[in-house]
């Protein structure tokens, strides 16, 4: 269960192009599991910014009773306000929120893909994976060297660490997906975890699908509440029953099985989604079966056998 607390700013520091903010928030730190996020109300008590800002948790530490650290880029009025805070300022903080990364029961070869500050939640996940005997390979990316987050930590803690930047200023030139297949083959990857913008996740899901590797993707979708009331952060996701629903990434995610997200339809309402215009539970298709459901075996559909385009 998430809690709403006043977190106290412990430190705020620059990390290349980003900011890292550490909050004293014991009630959140003790409940946190990798992949979950927190929301912060920005702008102070009389703020004109009504949406809360959501941040993946980078690190949780036991000092001061429990701290959580977030990494963000100051690119709008809300995050610029956050970047201007000082130690001992307090913040209306809610968390931990959302579905965490599932951890494989048996030791596995895990590939962790992160783009920009999106890689922040991967390091806590990696620690948890290593505790369970899994190995971790990192693949990090960004527009340029100062927009790759955590490469040093990745080099230190990972079995391997590869970097790709758009401008070639650090590691290979190009997108992370360009290096993916080589790593998958060399590391004999069993599971992929990815935190990246939607177009990258879509590409990651497509490549992993060809190798039959399950992907747990953490989506970066703008949110306003983080608790599920505002219905703003929706995505079309197919359930294991084969029915596509418009789900909220804050409560049903932010971590999704990538093969179930209809990446090509993000930002649309697919015609066959439950409740879409013209959809009918007992209409002409009968028996509660939307048209795309014909021929799909009910139950768990193996990854790679799902049509991303629906």
């Amino acid at each position: 269960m998430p809690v709403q607390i006043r977190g106290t700013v412990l430190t705020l520091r620059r990390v290349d192009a980003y900011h890292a903010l550490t909050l004293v928030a014991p009630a959140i730190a003790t409940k946190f599991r990798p992949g979950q996020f927190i929301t912060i109300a920005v702008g102070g008590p009389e703020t004109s910014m009504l949406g809360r800002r959501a941040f993946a948790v980078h690190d949780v530490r036991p000092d001061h009773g429990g701290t959580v650290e977030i990494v963000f880029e100051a690119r709008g009025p809300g995050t610029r306000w956050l970047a201007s805070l000082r130690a001992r300022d307090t913040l209306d903080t809610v968390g931990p929120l959302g579905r965490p990364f599932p951890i494989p029961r048996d030791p596995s070869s895990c590939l962790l893909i992160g783009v920009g500050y999106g890689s922040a939640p991967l390091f806590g996940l990696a620690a948890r994976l290593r505790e369970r005997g899994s190995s971790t390979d990192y693949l990090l990316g960004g527009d340029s060297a100062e927009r790759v987050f955590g490469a040093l930590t990745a080099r230190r803690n990972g079995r391997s660490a590869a970097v790709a930047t758009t401008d070639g200023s650090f590691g290979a030139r190009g997108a992370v997906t360009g290096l993916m297949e080589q790593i998958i083959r060399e590391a004999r990857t069993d599971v992929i975890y990815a935190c990246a913008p939607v177009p990258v996740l879509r590409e990651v899901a497509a490549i992993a699908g060809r190798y039959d590797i399950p992907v747990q993707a953490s989506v970066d979708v703008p949110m306003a509440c983080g608790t599920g009331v505002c219905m703003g952060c929706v995505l079309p996701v197919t359930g294991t029953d084969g029915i596509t629903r418009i789900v909220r990434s804050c409560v049903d995610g932010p971590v999704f099985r990538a093969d179930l997200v209809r990446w090509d339809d993000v930002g649309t309402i697919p015609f066959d989604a439950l409740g879409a215009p013209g959809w009918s539970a007992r209409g002409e298709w009968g028996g509660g079966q939307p048209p795309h459901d014909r021929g799909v075996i009910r139950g768990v559909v193996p990854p790679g056998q799902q049509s991303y385009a629906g």
Partner: protein
Amino acid sequence: MPADMRARLGLTDLPNLVLSASGCAGAGRELAQFIDVARVGAVISKSIMAEPHTGNPAPRLAETPSGLLNSVGLQGPGMDAFLQRDLPWLLSRGARVVVSIAGQTIREFAGLATRLSDTAGVSAIEVNLSCPNAEDAGQPFALDPQRAGSVIAAVRGSARYDIPVFAKLSPDVTDIVAVASACVAAGADGLSLINTLLGMAIDPVTMRPALAGKYGGLSGPAIRPVAVRCVWQVRAAFPDVPIIGSGGVRTGRDALELLLAGASMIAVGTEIIHDPSACSRVLRELEEELAAIGTDRAADVIGQAHGRTPRGLAWRA
């Protein structure tokens, strides 16, 4: 001693007059992680349609100064799922439930009211008149007094006699009193105002509308003065019709302002998105405001701004 915050909604006694507004409290479960839903005056459900509804594509929200634009498009599970899952859960937690209904035809509204009449535990029906009318080129019912009245007459005619029917009005009209008047004449037991104002935002980077639905409903403190004006005008015209006042309530002081304008209950909406425990905080702050002005019953300040001294008001120094 804290002020008496109780209110009455038809035959239901509410422990307090601070409600959660439709579409801002999810199914109630989302809020229950942060507050006790039994201590909210009443939970007004998301607008429920007859069938499951996906709503509009994303992006659905845009932040504006002290406001939020939304074009969620009434995403919801449909009446069957609401009655099977959400309503029983709220009742099991001791909440009082006002069910907001949304339809695209008058018949659909009447059908929804009939369904709710066969159900126990519905404290009131709130009729979302801002739905597009399928028989009038998608023009919302709320914009036309006669059509709004027809919907209310149909709902009142179909709903069980002991379930009060509240008409939720849109501020996007030239004369809100005319719409209120048509609804009252059609049998509305109360009025709920205001719904969002239609607005728009354009992203200067993409040079396209910020919302996939182009227009959206504007809510939040930006619209509070409009809410105060609407509540005032409707209260002046119908002093005996109960009003659920909503629109940009963020603090107890904001709630007090709407009570003074003539609302007999307050609904907290967008502020819940900003602060999930807003309902209990606004109630606490309202109690403090009332204590500060020396009133021991919240009911005593209702409509005070109109200058007529209500019966039973105990003046204090």
